[in-house]
């Protein structure tokens, strides 16, 4: 496409160490992106196994496999591992691979810090997972680690707290790197409003991370000092207040859920125009919608805690602010639909996942609106309806967008096409089993089944059976995904990919770089008109 394609030359001066040291010492954004993605996939499988432990127990009423204490550890660790170990690092992995290539930069701004922010993660994950083996077991206070449970449980919580500290530090360093790269290293001519949407959403996400990860670090530090150093932040006897933990936690927690979905919005906004062969409809409204979602996320936190007792004025404020978020989210969904309108669409695996994302994520958005209405929320608080809601937005939202992004960009990363037939199988199996697992949970929640409890009343047995069958189906479908990944990466099978295998894709990595992307790309920055 242009003179910047410089194979041969780029490979000419690679003097990096080989073997394991290549990966430990690497400062290359593509290597680090790969490390992030493998790490997050590993954690995804670990968290998935814990989820299957939960669903095995809930297949039938009564206690089958686990003690209730261990069940609490399963639910808590499943949440923590999926949020902090799988979804967040996976998006950072995408940012590492894609942001420099999409803005025409040679690498990330701080290459050595990039290496460090990745290698903190395995340390944190080891701490977190090893907490299963200390007396009293792993974190069992829910992924939200509410006080006073978290201030009273055994040493597993201390390991969890340190793991959160380390993962927080890693996220902050990663975000600083991403912001600096995007703000300072864009190709000449690429203004902020000309950036691909994936880059734009990641810029906003990175700001969110810098704003709220330190607040989480503060909250867990307070739990730590309450546990060991005699402070009483959350201890009523010493003048503290356990409800305050919920306020501080959700001040972090609500922006956090957008941290886990905004980059997904970015991926979908790259994939849909590429396969509809039309430019994205309403680019600037997409940017402003993303920014307003990010800003609104700071003033809605108390909708997670309507039942703690709040003045009516406070409840109404948080309720209206929450409902307001539906507006920019709706703008995004309608823009995606308008992009597809009269496009010449084809449905390769990335597009299937993107369209599936819109369908299922929107359902999760609607149940979110239902939960935002305080009188209904009082009924549904801590039931399976909530579990259904956040899995519709986190699995069908974040995870499906990650799948879409993987199939979309893997030809650029490896230079080979993934197995299209298996990819389509992966989509349909995931989509069907996802709904088999989580759709019945709406009914369970409406009927009053509480979450985080290892046993249930007999009338819930039928739907739980269906949900457990779906969960095992979904889990096994991801083994197929592992095979698809291995086939296209490690085994190097699949037909060679062209520099621009998707004809509608028009960002710099497709138009200016060969497939696979050279180890060092964009030594000379392209000029964007």
């Amino acid at each position, binding site marked *: 496409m242009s003179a910047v394609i410089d194979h041969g030359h780029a490979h000419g001066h690679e003097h990096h160490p080989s073997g394991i040291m290549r990966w430990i010492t690497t400062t290359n954004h593509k290597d680090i992106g790969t490390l992030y993605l493998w790490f997050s996939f590993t954690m995804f499988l670990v968290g998935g196994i814990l989820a299957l432990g939960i669903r095995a127990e809930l297949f039938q009423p009564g206690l089958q496999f686990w003690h209730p204490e261990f069940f609490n550890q399963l639910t808590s660790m499943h949440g923590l591992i999926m949020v902090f170990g799988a979804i967040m690092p996976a998006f950072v992995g995408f940012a590492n691979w894609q942001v420099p290539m999409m803005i025409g930069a040679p690498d990330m*701004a*701080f290459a050595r810090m990039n290496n460090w922010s990745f290698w903190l993660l395995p340390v944190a994950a080891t701490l977190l997972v090893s907490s299963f083996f200390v007396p009293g077991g792993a974190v069992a206070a829910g992924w939200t680690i509410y006080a*006073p449970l978290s*201030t*009273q449980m055994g040493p597993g919580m201390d390991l969890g707290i340190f793991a959160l500290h380390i993962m927080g530090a890693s996220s*902050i360093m990663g*975000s*600083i790197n991403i*912001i*600096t790269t995007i*703000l*300072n*290293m864009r190709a000449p001519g690429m203004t902020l409003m000309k950036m691909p949407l994936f880059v734009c959403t990641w810029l906003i996400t990175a700001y969110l991370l*810098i*704003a*709220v*990860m*330190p*607040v*989480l*670090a*503060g*909250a867990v530090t*307070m739990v730590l000092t*309450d*546990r*060991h*150093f*005699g*402070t*009483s*932040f959350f*201890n*009523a*006897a*010493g*003048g503290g*207040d356990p409800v*305050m933990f919920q*306020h*501080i936690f959700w*001040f*972090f927690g609500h922006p956090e859920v957008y941290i886990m979905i905004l980059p997904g919005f970015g991926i979908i906004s790259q994939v849909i125009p590429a396969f509809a062969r039309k430019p994205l409809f309403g680019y600037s409204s997409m940017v402003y919608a993303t920014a307003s979602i990010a800003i609104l996320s700071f003033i809605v936190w108390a909708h997670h805690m309507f039942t703690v*007792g709040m*003045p009516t004025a406070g409840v109404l404020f948080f309720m209206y602010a929450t409902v307001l978020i539906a507006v920019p989210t709706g703008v995004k969904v309608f823009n995606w639909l308008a992009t597809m309108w009269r496009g010449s669409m084809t449905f390769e695996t990335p597009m299937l996942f993107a369209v599936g994302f819109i369908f299922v994520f929107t359902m999760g958005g609607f149940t979110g609106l239902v939960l935002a209405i305080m009188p209904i929320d009082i009924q549904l608080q801590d039931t399976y309806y909530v579990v259904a809601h956040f899995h519709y937005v986190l699995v069908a939202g974040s995870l499906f967008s990650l799948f879409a992004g993987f199939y979309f960009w893997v030809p650029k990363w490896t230079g080979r096409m993934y197995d299209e037939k298996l990819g389509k199988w992966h989509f349909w199996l995931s989509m069907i089993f996802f709904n088999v697992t989580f759709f019945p949970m709406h009914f369970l929640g409406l009927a009053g089944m509480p979450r985080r409890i290892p046993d249930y009343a007999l009338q819930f047995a039928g739907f739980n059976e269906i949900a457990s069958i779906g969960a095992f189906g979904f889990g096994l479908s991801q083994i197929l995904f592992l095979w698809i990944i291995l086939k296209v990466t490690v085994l190097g099978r699949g037909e060679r990919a062209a520099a621009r295998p998707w004809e509608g894709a028009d960002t710099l990595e497709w138009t200016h770089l060969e497939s696979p992307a050279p180890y060092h790309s964009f030594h000379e920055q392209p000029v964007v008109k």
Partner: protein
Amino acid sequence: MTPDERARANRKLLGKLLVCAAIMFGFGFALVPFYEKICEVTGIRNVFQPDAVAAENTQVDAARSISVEFDANTQRLPWTFKPLQASVSVHPGEVTQVLYEVRNTLDRPVTGQAVPSYGPQQAVLYFKKVECFCFQQQTLGPGEVRKMPVVFLIDPKLPREINTVTLSYTFFEVNGAQGGRG
């Protein structure tokens, strides 16, 4: 931009963003006094101060009788703690005194803090404590027994449908971390 200039610009931005992160870490802790202030201003959590009693609230409404029940609990604290009367019948607006008795069963001094709660929840706004042992921490010597008063009145504006109010205290040991795990 030369590579040198770019490196300098990147480092400058790094510094600014690190400052942002540090400020937000402090902000997390600043939420603690901020939250307490909000509770104080809105009167959500004034459990450790006497309630303000307006003059018109002390008009006794002899036409109504409210049954006030008393309850006492301890949380991981080796004290015996009980009300000296299970319940009293009061007219709204009438100032009433009741006694609680607490005994330290240990052979060392222990400091505790009582935290009140009420049932039904709607009664909270109308239950005014003028004097209470829960306003301060209580330190009991080895084996000491103490009788402690609560002086309260019920606001005559208490909704008509409420005829029974329960006042419940829980004593916690005040010593930070050990208090949590006994």
